C-alpha cells in the first residue's frame, strides 16, 4: 500500500469512528435518561419524536443555543482550553480500540481499528491520564472554589485508581505477552476470557474504570450536593457540552477497554468451528463486540442509578487499601497460573 492509500484509509476510519462516537454519545444521554426513568418507575423522555428518540438533538440544540459565559475571575485561555483537552483525549483514545478482526475489502487488508499501535494499551493508559488535565485545568481556571475542589478531587482520584488499574492490566499483559490490543483479543480465544481467568483483576479493573470515568459511585469531582457542578460549575453552552461529550466518550472507551481486555473483544467462543463464511463471521464478530460494549454501557448506567456516591475518605480507603492490594493479589494469581499451565 502506498502512503497515500494509508492516509485515505485512515481518514475514512477516523471519520467513521468520530461520527459513530458522536452519535453514540448523543443516544447514550437518551438512554441514560430512559434507564434512570425506568429504574424509578417513570417513563422518561417521550415527547420529542417517536418515543422521544429525537430528544438528544433537542438537547444538543438547547446546549448550543445557550449563552457562553466566562466568569470574570476565570483564567480565560485555560478556561477555554480545558474542555478541548478533555474532548481531544477522549477521541484520541478511541483510535486504538479494535472493533473486529482484520478484514479483506476492496482488495485491501484492513484492521478494524483506526491505529493498530503495538503499544495500544500503554497508549490508552497514557491518554486517559492526560484527561485529568482537562478537568484540573477547568477546576483551577474557573476561579471558583467549587470548581477548584472538583478539579483537585479529580486528580487525586485519578492517581489513586490508576495504580490499581495499571496492576490489573499487568495481569492481562502477562497472559497476552503483548501490548497490542489485537493480540490481547486474540489471546482470549475460546472461553479463555480474562474475566473468567482472572476474576479479581476483572473486578478491580471495572471498579477503577468507574473511578477513571468519574461515573457514580465515584463522581466526586462533580458531586452536586456539595460542589454545585464540580469542575464544570462555571461552564455553559458549547464548552459545557464538551465536558458532557467527553464524559460519555470516556464511558464508551472504558467499556471498549473492558470488553477488549477482559471480555474477549470481538470474539465469539469457537465461532470458527461452525464453518461459517468469512464475511458472516466478521459481521457476527463486529456485532458481538458492539453488543458486549452496549451491555457494559448499560452496566455503567445501571450502576449509576443503583449505588449511591462514596464519601471522599471511603473513596480513598477503597482505592488504596482494597483495590491496590487486590490487584497485586491478581498478579500473583496470574503468575501462578502461568507457572502451572504453561
Amino acid at each position, binding site marked *: 500500500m502506498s502512503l497515500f492509500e494509508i492516509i485515505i484509509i485512515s481518514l475514512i476510519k477516523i471519520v467513521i469512528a468520530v461520527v459513530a462516537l458522536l452519535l453514540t454519545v448523543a443516544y447514550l444521554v437518551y438512554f441514560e435518561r430512559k434507564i434512570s426513568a425506568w429504574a424509578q*418507575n*417513570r417513563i422518561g423522555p417521550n415527547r420529542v419524536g417517536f418515543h422521544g428518540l429525537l430528544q438528544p438533538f433537542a438537547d444538543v440544540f438547547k446546549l448550543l443555543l445557550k449563552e457562553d459565559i466566562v466568569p470574570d475571575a476565570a483564567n480565560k485561555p485555560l478556561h477555554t482550553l480545558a474542555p478541548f483537552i478533555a474532548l481531544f483525549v477522549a477521541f484520541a483514545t478511541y483510535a486504538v480500540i479494535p472493533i473486529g478482526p482484520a478484514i479483506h475489502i476492496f482488495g485491501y487488508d484492513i484492521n478494524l481499528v483506526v491505529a493498530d499501535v503495538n503499544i495500544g494499551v500503554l497508549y490508552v493508559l497514557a491518554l486517559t491520564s492526560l484527561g485529568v488535565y482537562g478537568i484540573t485545568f477547568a477546576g483551577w481556571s474557573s476561579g471558583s472554589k467549587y470548581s477548584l475542589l472538583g478539579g483537585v478531587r479529580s486528580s487525586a482520584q485519578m492517581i489513586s485508581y490508576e495504580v490499581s488499574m495499571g496492576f490489573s492490566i499487568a495481569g492481562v499483559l502477562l497472559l497476552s505477552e503483548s501490548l497490542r490490543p489485537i493480540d490481547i483479543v486474540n489471546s482470549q480465544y475460546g472461553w479463555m476470557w480474562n474475566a473468567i481467568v482472572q476474576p479479581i483483576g476483572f*473486578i478491580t479493573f471495572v471498579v477503577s474504570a468507574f473511578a477513571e470515568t468519574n461515573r457514580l459511585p465515584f463522581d466526586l469531582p462533580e458531586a452536586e450536593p456539595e460542589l454545585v457542578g464540580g469542575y464544570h460549575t462555571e461552564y455553559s453552552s458549547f464548552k459545557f457540552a464538551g465536558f458532557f461529550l467527553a464524559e460519555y466518550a470516556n464511558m464508551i472507551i472504558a467499556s471498549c477497554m473492558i470488553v477488549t481486555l477482559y471480555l474477549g473483544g470481538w470474539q465469539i467462543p469457537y465461532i470458527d468451528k461452525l464453518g461459517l463464511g468469512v464475511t458472516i463471521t466478521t459481521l457476527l464478530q463486529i456485532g458481538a463486540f458492539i453488543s458486549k460494549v452496549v451491555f457494559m454501557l448499560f452496566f455503567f448506567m445501571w450502576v449509576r442509578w443503583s449505588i449511591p456516591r462514596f464519601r471522599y475518605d471511603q473513596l480513598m480507603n477503597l482505592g488504596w487499601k482494597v483495590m491496590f492490594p487486590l490487584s497485586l493479589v491478581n498478579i500473583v494469581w496470574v503468575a501462578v497460573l502461568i507457572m502451572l499451565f504453561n
Partner: protein
Amino acid sequence: MTVKKRTEDLTFFQKIYVAEIGRGLMLTLKNMFRPKVTMQYPEVKFIPPASYRGRPVLVQENNGVERCVACGLCSRVCPALAIEVQASETELEKERYPEKFEINMLRCIFCGFCEEVCPEEAIVMSKDYELVFTNREDAIYDKDKLLTSVDKLKDRLEFLRKFK
C-alpha cells in the same frame, strides 16, 4: 465528632460488599420492568384528594351570594400579603360584603391560613392547581375568578367539617 457505632455487626456477605452491590443492582433491574407511575400530564390529569390545598376560592351559595362578609381576617393572617379585601354595605342580613376581593396568585403560598381563619367558611382551598399567567396583572384574581359554586366545593367543605 461523635462516631455512631453500628448496633449490629455486618454479616460476612455484607462485608464482602460485592454481593450487596449485586442485590442492589437486581433491585433496580426489577424496578425497570415494573409498571410506570408517570401521569401523561396534559392528557391525563391528577385529581387531588379533598385534603389538597390548591388555589383559594370564595364559596358562592346557590342563590348567587358569596358567603364572605369581608371581615379581612384572611387578608390579615396571610403571611404573604396576597389578599386584598374591600368591604361595602349590603341590604342582606350579613350587612357586609366584599366589594373587591383580590388574591395575588404570585404572592400566594397556598398555606391555607385564610381558610383556617375564616369565620364564615367562605374562603376554601380548591383542587385547582393549574395556574398560568403571562404577566403580573393576570396573576391577580378578582371576585369573578374566585367565586365558585358551593356544589363544586362539597368535598373540601366536608373535609373541613371533619378535620378542622
